[in-house]
């Protein structure tokens, strides 16, 4: 212990001297080298940061409500430059305010990542809307391709309880009632879309109780 500390102290004054010597010997770095370095840094950091920020979901302006995330401004004129760039890069056409609103979930109500080997129960109500759809997407963002050939459900198809509430079961194996089969990819994403909803105008006021919860059941299917 004391030995190591002693050598570290002894080495310290020598280290800067040896590090500086090669630069001094070759003279000052020529200006073109520094300019080339600055340019390379600008391109690398500029492109790298732009790629990183634009590659996935919309980077700013999200509203998180329970497990669901929505971007209330992307369907309006107030969409931020990042959202516009992401839209252009992906070829997406966002839902307009007044047309509908989409909520994306990649975690369950407890905050754990959605795992296709588990089963989930989604319910029991949605905000007011003329129609809504619930869709399962695989890890690549495509509607889940399953044996059953269906990846989503609409509010018109769903079986409801007497009080109007509903429950959708997500799993790889067949379930009675409202059942959506999970894809073979490891992770998946859920999107709830409300069409013709008064919510779009003031989604910041939404709270988690009016959106369906996503409860995880047993895992390892």
């Amino acid at each position, binding site marked *: 212990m004391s030995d190591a500390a002693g050598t570290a102290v002894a080495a310290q004054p020598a280290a800067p001297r040896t590090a500086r010597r090669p*630069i001094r010997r070759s003279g*000052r*770095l020529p200006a073109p080298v*520094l*300019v080339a*370095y*600055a*340019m390379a*840094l*600008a391109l*690398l*950091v*500029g*492109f790298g*940061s*732009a790629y990183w*920020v*634009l590659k996935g979901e919309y980077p700013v302006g999200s509203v998180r409500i329970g497990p669901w995330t929505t971007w209330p401004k*992307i*369907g*309006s*004129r107030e*969409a931020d*430059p*990042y*959202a*516009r*760039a992401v*839209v*252009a*890069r*992906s*070829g*997406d*056409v*966002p*839902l*307009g*305010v*007044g*047309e*509908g609103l989409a909520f994306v979930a990649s975690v369950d109500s407890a905050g754990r990542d959605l795992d296709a080997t588990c089963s989930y129960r989604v319910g029991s109500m949605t905000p007011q809307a*003329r*129609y809504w*759809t619930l*869709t399962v997407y695989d890890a690549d*963002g*495509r*509607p889940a391709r399953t044996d059953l050939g*269906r*990846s*989503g459900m*609409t*509010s*018109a*198809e769903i079986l409801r309880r007497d009080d109007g509430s509903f429950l959708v079961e997500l799993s790889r194996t067949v379930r009675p009632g409202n059942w959506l089969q999970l894809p073979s990819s490891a992770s998946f994403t859920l*999107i709830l*879309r409300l*069409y*013709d909803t008064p919510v779009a105008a003031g989604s910041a006021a939404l709270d988690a109780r009016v959106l369906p919860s996503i409860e995880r059941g047993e895992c390892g299917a």
Partner: protein
Amino acid sequence: MSETGRFVLATLCGLVLAALVHIGIVFGIPWLGERDAFSRLRSTVAAERSELVAAPGATDTWLPRPDPALAVAACAYDLRDGPVRITTKSGPLFESLSFHSRAGGVFFAVTDRAAVRGLLDLVVMTRPQLDEALAREDEDEPSRDVRVVSPTREGLVIIRVLASQPSWRGQAEEAAKAVSCTSEPVGAT
């Protein structure tokens, strides 16, 4: 200046330029990119009918994360030769139109609830074209057109028709494809 100082200065210059490059890319992508929805549909500007982008339940579409219950169609427009009239008959299915300016996001959206006698009829025009139409207008007989001002000359109208049950899919696709988007000569509106 010391060697370290010069190096730090070069790094700072590099980072400031990096910020400019970053901003340039973020603002430039909507105009320069070739993968955005408008660029993909540019070839259909002259078409008089909407072009199907995604059939309900289809997986062979370039739309990211499409809703399988929706039929999505589009009319790309270029207002250089005058306003464009969008007309659609509303049916039993939910239908909505959203207006996307090129590189500028959604500037207007309307659903079939706004249809008058089963018809949705809108005219997309630029601000100068609106001024011209207003100047030309007869005060005793004002136009009944619903006029939508597009912030850019080029843009897209996206038509979404919902097949709430799989059996409606064929009808939803037909309805999405049946929207007419015709260029109107200047002065006709």
